[in-house]
């Protein structure tokens, strides 16, 4: 998919003026957050359950290479075929080649952010193979060529009339309707025809269990189960951090994932696959391929700070709690991952080059950190990215900051290094700033600080500095 992170500000401004986006954002994130909190109350000790999830993800990340090797050995013993992909190209090539080799002319897909990351649909289309998204929201966004708006509800913001129009255009319905249920049932029938004669299904992976070589998917619609049950060939694409040590750990993560994502104690369907169907079973895949995707993650793993972002389990709870996402929605984030989740993953995977506004679109309120069932400290990571960006970090491709900003900081550090210089500097700065005052406020300073003043004013600086007032006070005491 096309990456548009560099347009963060521009898309945000467009979305702030979009009444459909704003209507959705006023309701759903708040409702999902409330449901999440309510669902956590079903744990005997919600805080302990939350912390326990953190410790599972911590162990998974610290022991990642060993767990991946164990997972691979067990998955192969179960009869699955494991392919390690360095990058999107390698993963896409493997899947396209497999589809060609098997002579399939279309595939169906379960909702999966990692295949959005790969741009798999586009790669299949280039090879002349149709890829049908089968999650209702993803199906709609695919027909409209839109990115997902929210990880749980990719098309929640799309007006129903627009869905009706595109369904008519693509032959999903014959006569217009704006009834969401009728539209959904029409999509069911349309996609059912694809599922029935399906040769190859593709899904993502929510969790991979090292001790048993099992992949787990979580969903509410049943499309992933159909993807795993109907075709003869199944491809499961997992980013390499999805592994957890044991089945017992996986059960706990399922509990916190479902509660965090949709406020359910359990999603309608959770399916655990350990290899292809056995020869005497009537349905299920005869071949199961597991693609383990790196795509920059092992590089991200080298840095203990960025490594922390690999804990993410893609529940979306951080989106629902974020005041910035709550205003601008999912489109400005410009890639497969939106909200705070995207702000910590995208710069680490894509580099800092086009993510200057993305990493700064945060008030550091810490709500995402507090709600995260995997224990990610998003605010600290964003500060880290900002520092790396300004320092021009070569690994992450930091910009090094603008020359004007660098000059100001250099002058500032020189001025701050000696108390006499500081006194001269602060006197000049005071005079210059107050020169711009309007009444008791400074509303703008023409050079270098326009961005700062775009959303706030500065009180006019008092005539006397703190140091002068302090000295006056000391003098008056002595008298």
């Amino acid at each position: 998919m096309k990456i548009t992170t560099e347009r963060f500000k521009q898309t945000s401004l467009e979305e702030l003026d979009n009444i459909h986006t704003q209507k959705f954002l006023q309701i759903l994130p708040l409702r999902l957050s409330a449901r999440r909190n309510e669902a956590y109350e079903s744990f005997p000790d919600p805080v302990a359950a939350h912390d326990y999830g953190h410790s599972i993800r911590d162990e998974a990340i610290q022991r990642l290479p060993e767990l991946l090797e164990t997972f691979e050995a067990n998955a192969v013993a179960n009869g699955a075929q494991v392919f390690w992909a360095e990058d999107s190209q390698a993963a896409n090539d493997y899947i396209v080649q497999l589809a060609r080799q098997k002579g399939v002319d279309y595939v169906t897909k379960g909702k999966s952010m990692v295949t959005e990351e790969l741009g798999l649909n586009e790669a299949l289309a280039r090879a002349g193979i149709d890829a049908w998204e089968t999650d209702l929201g993803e199906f709609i966004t695919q027909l409209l060529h839109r990115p997902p708006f929210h990880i749980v509800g990719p098309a929640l913001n799309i007006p129903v009339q627009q869905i009706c129009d595109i369904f008519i255009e693509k032959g999903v319905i014959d006569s217009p309707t704006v009834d969401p249920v009728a539209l959904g049932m029409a999509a069911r029938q349309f996609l059912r025809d694809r599922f029935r004669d399906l040769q190859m299904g593709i899904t993502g992976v929510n969790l991979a269990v090292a001790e048993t070589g099992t992949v787990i998917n979580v969903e509410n619609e049943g499309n992933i189960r159909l993807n795993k049950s109907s075709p003869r060939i199944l491809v499961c694409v997992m980013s390499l951090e999805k592994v957890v040590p044991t089945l017992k750990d996986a059960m706990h993560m399922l509990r916190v994932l479902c509660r965090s994502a949709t406020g359910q104690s359990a999603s309608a369907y959770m399916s655990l696959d350990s290899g292809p169907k056995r020869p005497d079973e009537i349905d299920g895949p005869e071949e199961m391929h597991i693609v383990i995707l790196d795509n920059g993650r092992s590089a991200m793993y080298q840095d203990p700070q960025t490594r922390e972002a690999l804990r993410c389990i893609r529940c979306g709870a951080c989106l629902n709690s974020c005041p910035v996402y709550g205003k601008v929605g999912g489109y400005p984030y410009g890639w497969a991952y939106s909200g705070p989740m995207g702000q910590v993953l995208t710069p680490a995977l894509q580099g800092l080059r086009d993510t200057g506004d993305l990493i700064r679109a945060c008030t550091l309120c810490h709500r995402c950190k507090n709600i995260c069932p995997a224990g990610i400290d998003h605010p600290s990571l964003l500060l880290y990215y900002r520092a790396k960006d300004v320092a021009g970090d070569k690994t992450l491709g930091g910009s090094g900051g603008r020359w004007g900003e660098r000059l100001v900081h250099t002058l500032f550090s020189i001025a701050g290094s000696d108390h006499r210089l500081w006194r001269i500097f602060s006197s000049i700065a005071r005079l210059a700033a107050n020169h711009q005052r309007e009444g008791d406020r400074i509303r703008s300073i023409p050079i270098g600080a326009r961005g700062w003043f775009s959303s706030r004013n500065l009180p006019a600086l008092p005539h006397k500095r703190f140091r002068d007032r302090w000295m006056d006070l000391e003098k008056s005491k002595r008298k």
Partner: protein
Amino acid sequence: MPENARNAILQRLQRTERRSAVPRPDLPPLRELALDADQLKNQFMAQFQLQGGISYPVANDQALYDRLSDIFRTENITRAMATEDAVITSLQLDQWGARSGVEIVHPSGYQDRQSYTQAVFDQVQAGITGATFAVAESGTIVTGHDRTQGRLVSLAPLVHVVVVPVAHIIATYEIAMEALFADGRRPSQVTFITGPSMTADIQGTMFKGMHGPQKIFALVLDSTP
């Protein structure tokens, strides 16, 4: 080439310095572990209803047949596919079907996979399965799939009826996992079903039956004669 990619990725992960994982904190056991059999049954049924399922206690096989007749009459079901797991084969559904005007078919009755798939998608209105386990903590049906438990039977038709012997009701997921994966066994697929298929992807409007069943009935069987 793939072997190279594997080794390169693993080496990059291995060569970096890593700290020890933080110790696991204390986790109080789930409340369901303290429940007795009756409480577990009540909890399972309450949770199952809460998640959008419909559950009925049935005292014996006859009560189960009567309830099935009611459900199938109300839902206008004349043809259903039943799995061949131990729970279902202990019943006499074929005979009940013959008495009640409902044709019961089974996956093994089809010559090949394709005709079975056609049938389960298009020629039956309901699927009937036995629960390997029913989990009280969230009202979840757990099924270990094998030659007797076709995957599509509980998924493709619009109505799913699951028979839950009361002895199969357990407190937590972990108990089911320990049993299903005991002694190195690896079922090809284990499914957790909690309520009907649903979505709210269009304007947040919730509706049931998106891809899987619109209705799911649990018949909780107290005893077998």
